[in-house]
């Protein structure tokens, strides 16, 4: 008798067995964030390579008028505070959800969304008035590369926040079932923390 024959005494799958206590969606989003870190890491590598290996003498380089490119660090600092605040509001929304406080969940999500939107609009205005363009040297390339890559992530994050907010108003999520909220929140926290690194690298150092 073959080993496999005994496997077919009845039909249909056995109950699913989970070999890990981590929720699959949560593990998945963490892996995705790991890959995102590598993506940002590559742009940071480009930044530091162009700065330290290719242009060791002067950074930011001089523009046509002979003065270094100006980086609007103060405006970006305000913007940083706005984004960091939004991390707290989404945390509040999650905690409210776990406590069954729907009004808190809804208010937290709306606030988070508006703060994120403010950040993105401020960045657009900043780009508009910054005084140099993408084709002005490798400095500009890496500046717009890093901040722009982050801006794209904020944009995607806002779409996710929008979906979560709509769902919160439609009565989704409960103290026992809120993975969609949690996974979106993890992503938003990541976007936040990554901005702090981008800010320090691009505007301060």
């Amino acid at each position, binding site marked *: *008798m*073959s*080993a*496999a*024959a*005994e*496997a*077919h*005494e*009845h*039909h*249909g*799958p*056995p*109950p*699913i*067995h*989970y*070999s*890990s206590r*981590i929720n*699959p969606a949560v*593990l*998945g989003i963490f*892996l*995705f964030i*790991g*890959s*995102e870190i*590598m*993506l940002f*890491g*590559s*742009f940071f*590598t*480009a930044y530091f*390579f*162009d700065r330290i*290996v*290719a*242009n060791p003498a002067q950074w930011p*380089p001089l523009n046509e008028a002979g003065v270094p490119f100006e980086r609007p660090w103060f405006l970006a600092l305000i913007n940083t505070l706005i984004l960091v605040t939004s991390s707290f509001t989404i945390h509040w929304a999650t905690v409210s959800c776990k406590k069954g406080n729907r009004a808190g969940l809804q208010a937290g999500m709306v606030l988070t969304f508006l703060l994120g939107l403010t950040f993105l609009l401020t960045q657009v205005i900043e780009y508009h008035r910054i005084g140099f363009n*993408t*084709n002005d*040297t*490798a*400095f*500009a*390339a*890496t500046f*717009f*590369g890093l901040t722009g890559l982050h801006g794209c992530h904020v944009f995607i994050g806002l779409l996710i926040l929008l979906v979560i907010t709509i769902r919160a108003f439609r009565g989704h999520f409960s103290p026992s079932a809120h993975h969609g909220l949690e996974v979106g929140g993890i992503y938003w926290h990541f976007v936040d923390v990554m901005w702090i690194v981008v800010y320090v690298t691009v505007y301060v150092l």
Partner: protein
Amino acid sequence: MASKANHHPSAARQRFGSDWRAGRITAWLTTVDHKRVGLLYIWTTLGFFAVGGVLALLMRAQLATPNENFLTRGSYNQVLTIHGTTMIFLVIVPILAGFGNFLVPLMIGARDMAFPRLNALSYWLFLLGGIVLLSSFWAGHGAAQGGWTSYVPLSTLHMPGHGEDFWILGLHILSISSLVGAINFIVTIHNMRTSGMTWTRIPLFIWAILTYAWLLVIVLPTLSAGLTMMLLDRQWGTHFFDPVHGGSPILYQHVFWFFGHPEVYIMILPAMGIISEIIPVFARKPIFGYKAVAYSTVGIAFFSLLVWAHHMFSTGLPVGLDSFFMLSSMVIAVPTGVKIFNWLATLWRGNISFDTPMLWSLGFIGVFTLGGLSGIFLAAFPIDWQLTDTYFVVAHLHYVLFGGSMFAVFAGLYYWWPKMFGRLLDERLGKLHFALVLIGFNVTFLPQHFLGLLGMPRRVYTYRPGGIWEVYNVISTVGSFLMAVGMLVFVLNVVITARSGRRASNDPWLADTLEWYTTSPPPAWNFDRLPYISNARPLRDVRRRLEAERWK
């Protein structure tokens, strides 16, 4: 173990359909079943393999004799670029994903992947990326011409048409596809193992796929970043890589090879996993040193992240860096050697049967080892200064990628074919296929070592007449057509056995891993019941238990 009794045959049939393969085309288009997705991957990649193979024959035809006018200079470069990119991104990486898709849930006793819909997404993105990449040929000025490495400034300042942009877009889509697939593999292997299947009881192929997936998650984003910067330099006027404006072309090489070297291990580790499954079955012995094989997989993956600049020795790195990358590259030979010795020790005094899967595996060991040895030569930077960008490198990479990865792929196809389709491939045709390809392969690529040592550069469309180069080149071309004939035998084998092949039992090779516990092909839900897993060879346990019961 008593499983829940609420799965009556009829109920199960209703829920899952009677046979997961018996659908119309729409059922395949909308499928999220890991086995179907896996087969879609495999069929599609075999199609791309034919495309890539024809491109290779075009190149060999052009190089058969000097000053041939079969291809023009421009079209030769296009053919070369799309051949390399196709074989790497549309054949080897995805066909290993195809094996992974089909096998991972079966091997770990799961019902499906952790995210079945994402799984389907990754297949369709793969198909889309492949089409975009190949459509590069129809762009203005023809396809991309920069080789699979697509170095700057060649690809930024000297490639006016849109072929290069198609190439970039295609690779972007393909990397998203692979990333999604890789995350799915990792989560599945973490979360969906059946009861009792601890980390040291998973099949070695699962270790390989897990490591493959981790490497993809870590390095694919780097490729995406490099491609994005290249695209911006081409189309948006940025200067990431332009030294005139403060950028650096060497930066591109660092970014590319930080991805590119681990990529070669992405292509070989699952192949080694396939070999580690097949050798013990046909030697009728357990694998020698399960843990050594498993941990060396992880070790190779780790070191592969630290060796990328061995592709950049000729760019004039400081000697300290050259030495570091030389030594780290040679260190990789240690865990690789561990594997080779473990396979040999498994064969030692085994009761070996030379079925087709085993022949391909033995071929793999021989040919791959040669490729690894030429790799060690190249890793010594003074030797590399002499041999880089010559045919020696072409010979090296084909010994490891064709003789390595593709041999293992064919071993895997012959081995798991009965599980996939319920019929065995024909043994005689299989052996003919193997013999033709093994001989053709060595006739093609062995002389390329000598060509490289004699200084023939790679990526050239013609060469000077006279001398021994001519002889080696014509031999190489003859070999390539011999291989092509071998591949036709494989096609014949598939076509013939589709109707008349011998029906496979559940476990035709008397193997030890879980996928052989279920029917061939498996039902939609994979398993009706599962044994508790108490070691890495669950089926042997079941066989022994049944044997004991019979004599009671």
